[in-house]
Structures are given as structure tokens and as C-alpha cells.
């Protein structure tokens, strides 16, 4: 099962589903022949794409809309906010190559404020799967929901066996007493590596795959806070408005404090390259994440052996 197969089966079983794209067919190439008029390509027109999706949703359809994450969330932002958001319509946005997955494109294509933008829209839900299996686990619930949704598409193969998806629930991979890593999306695979490296140093390291950023699993986060370990947020997003901000909001709302190390992009776009080079340069390989955490703990003398090589991203659009 892959993304295309899942959407095909879902659409064939549910005539409300309409697949739309602004000429980003990387994951849905075979659907035009299967879905006929229920596959709509508007060409390179993200704004019209969203408006038309809202119109289709007004008529009872559930449009699953594909575009590059950055153009979808940025160029069409007001259309999402105004047509889909004010309309509270069940438009399902699939953003391709979000965050570091846009590895070689450069700043114009880097969706690293998308979580911030989308969660700022009332009623919008926001999801970021760790890998393709995680994405397939969550999509049926997302598509079945009456709410608008934004998905950070992630088709990378994973090795972790994910728990079944439950709306609004994070996946607790491990609990730890020294450090807890919170993450979402494609960096999950690197945090697994980081956790192993830190565990090898004798540390007790927890790891949470958020899966859903809105609704957020506040109970799971508060549980981590109360355990008192160092919390590390790891995200391929600007530090503003993403997971670090979400955690900060939760802490303040509950009048709590915590030791938090945010690993995110601060006031800059990232340097383009192959994915492995980007993660290496920006300090987001498992090895670098572990090193940065160790240094934060004041253990700069500790040596951490580099983890496995980063699998390069398959080129998509």
C-alpha cells in the first residue's frame, strides 16, 4: 500500500472524494485514468485550486488537494484562510516536500512556516507523519473528519512499527527520565538514531512522535513536563509558530515551566543540497541532534559516534 493506492481505494469507495492538484502529480500520476472527472488538475494556480476546492466542498465533495507545501500554504494562504477556513469546509490539503524534504530547491520552496500558518486558522487541523507508514495510518481518519486539514506529506520509508493512529493522540515511542525528544515529520527517523546514540551513553531518553500538531496531545506533553526531564523539540520549521511555540503556549497556559532545548531553524532559511548534506550542514542528522543535546547538557567532552548514513530523498517535483 502506498499513498496513491490508499487514495484510489478511498475515492473508489466514496464518491465524495475529489482529487485535485496544481500540476503536482508526483504521487498521484495514475489517478486521472481511474477517477476521470473526479481528478481535477487546475494547472499552476494554487489560489484558484483552493477556491475551486471550496466550491466543490460546498457541493458535498471532499477535495484532497495536492500542491507543493510552500505554494499551497503561502501563496494560497488567504484562500485557505478565507474560503476554506471561514467556510469550515472539509478540504484536505496535501503539501508536498515540506521542511527539509524540499532539500535542493532553495528558500523559495522551503515550507518551514507552514505549521505556524496552518495552525493559525480556526478549525484547521495539522498533521505531520513520521514516514509513509505513519501517513497511511493517519489519512483515513483525516479524510473522514468533517474538518479542514493540512498534511505535511512524507513518503519516506520507515523502519519503525507505528501504533494505530488516534486523532489528537501522540505516539509515545519511549519514556525517559533524563531527556525527552519531541518531534514530528521526517526528522523522526533522525531522532530514533539520536536516541540510540544517547542511550549508548547511558542516558534514559524518551521519544514522542507528535503526528498531529493540531489538535495537539496536550496530556502527553504535560506528562513529559511533569516528569522533569530535559525536553528537546526537534523540527524542520522556523522556531516561531511550530512545536517549540506550541509547547511554550501549553506551559504558560498551565503555569508550568520546563527545561527546553529547541532544535529548529532560527531566523534563516536552510542551505539547499542533497538531503544528507542539508541535515549535516544544518545539524539535524541523528548524530548532530545527539551531539547538540549532549553539548546543551554541558558534556562537550563526550564523544558520539556518527549514526547511519541518511537515505537521500527521492526527487519529487
Amino acid at each position, binding site marked *: 500500500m502506498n499513498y496513491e493506492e490508499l487514495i484510489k481505494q478511498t475515492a473508489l469507495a466514496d464518491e465524495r472524494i475529489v482529487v485535485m492538484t496544481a500540476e503536482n502529480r508526483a504521487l498521484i500520476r495514475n489517478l486521472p485514468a481511474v477517477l476521470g472527472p473526479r481528478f481535477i488538475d487546475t494547472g499552476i494556480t494554487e489560489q484558484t485550486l483552493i477556491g475551486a476546492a471550496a466550491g466543490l466542498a460546498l457541493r458535498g465533495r471532499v477535495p484532497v488537494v495536492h500542491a507543493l507545501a510552500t505554494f499551497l500554504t503561502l501563496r494560497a494562504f488567504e484562500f485557505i484562510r478565507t474560503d476554506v477556513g*471561514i467556510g469550515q469546509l472539509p478540504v484536505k490539503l496535501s503539501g508536498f516536500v515540506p521542511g527539509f524534504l524540499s532539500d535542493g530547491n532553495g528558500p523559495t520552496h522551503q515550507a518551514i512556516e507552514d505549521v505556524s500558518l496552518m495552525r493559525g486558522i480556526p478549525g484547521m487541523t495539522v498533521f505531520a507523519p513520521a514516514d509513509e507508514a505513519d501517513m497511511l495510518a493517519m489519512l483515513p481518519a483525516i479524510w473522514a473528519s468533517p474538518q479542514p486539514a493540512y498534511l505535511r506529506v512524507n513518503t519516506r520509508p520507515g523502519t519503525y512499527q507505528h501504533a494505530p493512529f488516534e486523532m489528537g493522540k501522540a505516539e509515545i515511542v519511549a519514556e525517559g527520565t533524563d531527556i525527552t525528544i519531541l518531534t514530528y515529520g521526517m526528522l523522526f527517523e533522525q531522532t530514533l538514531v539520536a536516541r540510540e546514540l544517547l542511550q549508548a551513553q547511558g542516558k534514559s531518553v524518551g521519544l514522542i512522535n507528535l503526528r498531529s500538531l493540531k489538535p495537539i496531545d496536550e496530556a502527553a506533553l504535560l506528562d513529559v513536563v511533569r516528569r522533569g526531564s530535559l525536553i528537546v523539540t526537534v523540527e524542520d520549521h522556523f522556531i516561531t509558530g511550530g512545536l517549540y511555540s506550541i509547547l511554550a503556549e501549553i506551559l504558560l497556559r498551565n503555569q508550568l515551566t520546563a527545561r527546553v532545548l529547541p532544535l529548529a531553524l532560527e531566523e534563516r532559511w536552510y542551505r539547499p543540497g542533497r538531503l544528507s548534506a542539508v541535515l549535516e550542514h544544518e545539524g539535524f542528522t541523528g548524530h548532530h541532534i545527539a551531539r547538540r543535546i549532549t553539548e546543551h547538557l554541558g558534556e562537550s567532552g563526550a564523544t558520539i559516534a556518527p549514526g547511519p548514513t541518511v537515505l537521500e530523498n527521492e526527487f519529487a517535483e
Partner: protein
Amino acid sequence: MTPETQQKLEKLALKVREHIVRLSTDGGCFTGASLSCADLLVYLYSELLNVRPDNLTDPTRDYLFLSKGHDVPALYGTFVELGFLDKARLDQHLSTDDHIYWHPNRHVPGVEFHSGSLGHLPSVALGVAMDCKMRGQDNKVIVITGDGELNEGTVWESLLVASAHKVNNLTLVVDRNHFQANVATEDLIPLEPLAPKFEAFGCEVRRIDGHDFKQLEEAFSALPFSDSKPSVIICDTVRGRGLPSIEARADRWFCNFSSEEVEELLRELHSQVATTLTSETLTVR
């Protein structure tokens, strides 16, 4: 069109203009802009569209999307006169207890979608029209834009897509009152020659006098103009139509009159004799 129908429409349009004038106080509304499309809305809801208070959820009804959200006083007035909306709700204009404000929203029966941010509803209407076609329905989907609104790229973007997809059940109507907000279109961002622009974007175009009910009927009853193209009807109109004192001034897009001025305007509406209004120039947006 029979003389009786014509008379009926003229009476209705006069009533709608009265509503617009009455809404132009206690905070005001987009008076000038609304007056230009009163005849158009009256004709469409009274004569053409299969939209009635009792079929608003019927998916085979016709659809009218008011992309030019400023015109909502004309829509409110039309809805009151045709029984969609209780007249008492207009007394709630700009009250937070109701949803009667400067732009359309779906809390008002008959309003298909919220608008106000310009250049949005051509694409929303496109989505609706695509679905109607997909289901083999032949209902009309009409979207009204202002001419100033044509500055927004998404109007043209959506027409490109509509044309490419041969969405011939979609009709874009331009309320061509030759003003965008407080400035004449041709002085700021000239639009002429307008019809060839739409033709170049793959549309079939007609241009008419938007205050002439016979011309409205002739054009709209010929829809769709093509088997394979979206239709465009450019309605040449006069901003402030029906009130010479408003027609004459470029700054009467948005008006907030005193109650005395409203009474004076109502007299002007019926006698067509221009009055002199002392309200300050308003250039809100």
C-alpha cells in the same frame, strides 16, 4: 419582456434602492457600489434564476455568487422584497446580534458564500460549476464581480482554468460601473478594451446596458453562449444609479448619511431631483 414585467421589475428595483438608502446611515454601507447592481440583482432573482426561499438547499437550484461583496445592501434589499429575508433583520444592520453587515455571509438565507476579499468567488463558483457538470446537472452558476475587482489576478486565473476545463455552465458578470473604490477605473488601472480581454482568456462575451431589463433578459436568456466556453456578460452600469446626487460624485462609494439626509435621498429617489448633501467625503475601505 412584457410591459407588465418591466413595470414590476422597475418597482422592485426602486424598493431595493430604498433599502440601500436606508442602510446608508448609522455606520453606513457601500451605497454607490450597491446602487449600480440593483437592477441586475432584481432581474436575476425575479426572472432568471431558479433560486427561491423554498429551494435554497436543493443542489439542482441555480447559484449566484456575489464576489463583489460591497453590493450586499442590494442583495439584502432583493432578498427582503422576494421573501428570502425578514425585513426586520435589516434593522439589525451592524448589530453584533445578527449577521447583517458590510459583506455577505451565509447566515443570511440565499447568500451562497461569504465574500468581501476580492477575486475569491470566481474560483469558488468554478468549483461549484465543475461539480454541477460532473453530476450532469444543467443549473446555472453565476458570479458577479466588480470592475475594480478585475485588477485581482485570480479572476483571470480562474477563467483560464474554467476555459481549459470547458466549464460552460459558469457565467461571470461584471458590474462595470467604471469605478474602483473612489477612483475611476480608467484613471487608475484602465480595463478597456475589456471584452477582448475576456475573449482572449477563452470566454464568450456579451456587453449590455446593465440597467436595461430588456437587454438583461436578452443576454441572460441566451446562456450558455457556447458549448465549450464560460460566458461573460459585461453590464455597463452607473455607480449611484437612481440618485443623481450620488451618481455625480466619485467619493460616494461608501456613504454614512444622517437620518435627515436619508429622508432627503428617499425623496430624491422618487422625484429624481438631485439634492445637495453635506456629509463629508468618505474614503473608507
